[in-house]
């Protein structure tokens, strides 16, 4: 049963944390808001599965990278808003640079001759 949820995650291991932290950089947001934001900003490509989102939020909170607070949302609903902490901001920078290294490396592997052997 669990596998079915895990299969739907098309994100690389660890990238969800990065996406969440990045989304929260623009301001406090609740769980639903985060999932909508990721979906919209990725041009509907990245679907964040709730079965991964909430555990990730709770995990990040346990690691003290984000903190939460119950607030009233714009449409007058009480919701749990998550917010980056100072440690979270540092973590975000770290994760971003890690991600950039990774994507450069991936690009290098996938297009090995680019820029090197150009005639």
């Amino acid at each position, binding site marked *: *049963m*669990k596998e079915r*949820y895990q299969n739907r995650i098309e994100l690389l291991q660890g990238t969800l944390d990065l996406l969440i932290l990045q989304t929260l950089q623009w301001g406090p947001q*609740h*769980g*639903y*808001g985060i999932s909508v934001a990721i979906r919209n900003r990725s041009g509907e490509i990245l679907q964040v*599965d*709730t*079965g*991964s989102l*909430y*555990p*990730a*939020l*709770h*995990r990040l909170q*346990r690691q003290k990278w984000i903190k939460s607070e119950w607030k009233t*949302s714009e*449409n007058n*609903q*009480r*919701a*749990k808003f998550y917010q980056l902490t100072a440690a979270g901001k540092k973590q975000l920078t770290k994760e971003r640079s890690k991600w950039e290294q990774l994507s450069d490396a991936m690009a290098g592997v996938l297009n090995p001759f680019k820029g090197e052997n150009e005639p």
Partner: protein
Amino acid sequence: MKFPWQKSKQQESDLANEIQNHLNMASQERAERGATTDEAAQAARREFGNVELVKETARDAWGWRWVEDFFEDIRFGFRMLRKSSGFTIVAILTLALGIGVNTSVFSLMDFVLLRPLPVPDPGRVTVLSRGGSPLFSYPDYNDYRDRNQSFTALAASVPTESSLDYQGESRATAAEAVSGNYNDVMKIQPLLGRWFTDENENVAVISYDAWQRIFAADANVLGKQVRSESQWYSVIGVAPPDFTGIYSPIRIDIWVPLRIWTTQHPNLAAERTDRMRRRVMLFGRLKDAIEPFVATANLQAIDEQIHRENPGIAPDKNRVLVERTSGIPSPISRRNAVPVLILLFGVVGTVLLIACVNVGNLLVVRGVVRRHELSVRTALGAGRIRLLRQLLTECLLLCFMGAAAGLVFGSWTNYLLKVLLLSLPIDAPIQLNLALDYRVFLFAAALSILAALTCGLLPAWHAASVDVAPVLKGESPQATCFRMRHAFLAGQIALSLVLLLCTGLFLRSIAKLQSSDPGFAVKNRLYALTYISEPEFNAESGLQFYSKLLTDLRSLPGVQSATLTRLLPLRGQGNETNCVSTATSQPFSSTFGVLDSGFLAEMQIPVLQGREFDAQDQPHGKPVAIINATLAQRLWPHQNAIGQSILLGCDSKTSAEVVGVAANTKVVSLGEAPQPYFYLPFSQNYTGLVTLVLKTASESTAFVSTVREALHKQDNSLRIYGLETLSSHLERSYYQVRWESSMLLIFGLVALLLATVGIYGAIAYYVTQRTREIGLRMAIGARPAEIGKLILSQGLRVAGLGISVGLVVSLGVARLLGRFLSGLNPLDPLSFISTAILWSLVAAAACYLPAQRAMRVDPMVALRHE
């Protein structure tokens, strides 16, 4: 008080609200895009997925999930076990039986091999040995003590069977004659008084137990005079309760200075300078940071020095070894106990395995009964691993409860072990402390986890992998379940058959021992162990005393004859040995006895050639000996032995003339093959310790009190240690086989019972499961007899398989038992056949009852059943 893994209500409701908000917002957005409220809510839910599962995975992130699950499982497990209390009780009792006997045997092993000496810092106390023997010569001891750099102290000790007299009453006991630095090694704090340090002082330390029994815990015991053997000592200390010396399981009652003790025995005094006579046990306390192997190397180097300085003495090919003491200090006794422990562990391990299989079988049945529950839980999203964990936790709970009950049960078997072991044929107090210490508890815990895995893993795996759909539709379980149960059953039958067969072999070997002829008459004979010593009696007056005593005894009504020997044969390892050789042959070790004239005639041991000892063998006359047929054959295979001379002793030899050849008798044990044995005359080999043997006109038990009275009327320095029939001495000689077979008989019957219950339960369950099918068969014309045959054949097929497997396994196991069976052929056909028949009958009976029930199935009731 709140543990971090306890779920907080706040956190829970937070999570629920958070998810509810998510759903609300999602459906609100959809509604704003024009969907109806219902549609929007449904779509939001669908997109969200399984709410409970998301909650579960979110909780995982809280981090205490597994602990929480574990407690949850335990709570749930308890509830499930309470719900089916019948199953629970049977399973716990079965496991208690299995685990209990194991902890009991483990306590014995703990005592023999593991438990440290009850002294401060016991890890530094070591024992020395050479080729397994702990005995060393005095000169070697002196050199080791003075030259080593490894020990803070190296002490010598001679444990010995001895006597302890106080206020005219004498007891046979064990003593330890120890060097003055003994307590530098042991470092024990006496309960009262002090420990001696001067070997030339006439002082002694008594055991706590002796203080309690003999002195009634008198606080003024210090300074009282006691006598051990011929020497008087004044008590200067009482040992603490748990310290019983280094001769365990024999309890030491008195510790005396080695030098004083030696002066009583002129021959021992001579040994103090003889490097060939090994007499003392050596114990050393290691210096800090010195490991036993360093000490070993140190002593081996000293050995080489000694050898260089004494070139005339051949070095021992076995090298000296320093070991930490644990359990029984003497390495040789420890090594002797190991085969018995292995046998016992084999037996109780098998009992536990049978118990586990039985519980495993019950669990399979329970898995079938719980199929519905388990499928519902699977349908609700429980993973297979999660279910497996739950089922195993339940099983673990069962096993822990079983272990707890087992420790209680084990204390009963401990008692049994003790009672059976204390009938050792030794005239000294035995102390067997099978206390439950932390090692036993750890062992029980480890065993219950092992048992839980053994009995729980397969059934749990099987139950956890239920296929949801057919179960929820109410279909019957698959056949694999039956196959597994049948394999379990056959295995159980095979195991219990092996145990039963081993028991049979032991019982047969006892029967063989009982009917075997010791080579001397036993019926209507009494014996008494008596002791007189210096200064009241020297050799001359002692001989006169015993001669007069025998005359007095012969005049008692009903006593036909009376004679004496030093020690009766068949004392196990307690018989005296010496080297024998001829002028031309190499010396070898032989057992010997010391006899008074008339002993061979009274015991009806035929004299094949020559004569028995008689009045012409004077104390200072020509030394004479009688040899048995085996020794005669070995020394002079082609000549007449009479008139030849044999040499006695390993290095300093004395010679004796052979005056007779006697028929072979059993010497060490009843099961032995004929071995060399010789006799020396009492008149030329006097000691104060003798065994009087009386032949009575009728059943000898009737004469015990008369003889005791007659002995008490003698000189009041005559000490009497045992007065019994000769047949009871003979029975004690095979106490070990008897002890082993009583254990086996008990465990074998337990195994038979468990396996019978197992097969009965399995077949009965099989019938219940097939009630519908049986009803159908009957409805279309099957006769009850056919149904009965069907069920019976089903059960007997399994039993037949188990019995054949068991017989094959037994063929291998029986060979391993050879050394315990005192000469019985391990492949004894009678035991094999009778065990197979017995088990077939038991299996038939166990299958017959359920078959009967199947035959009485009413088709109408059965078909309406569901």
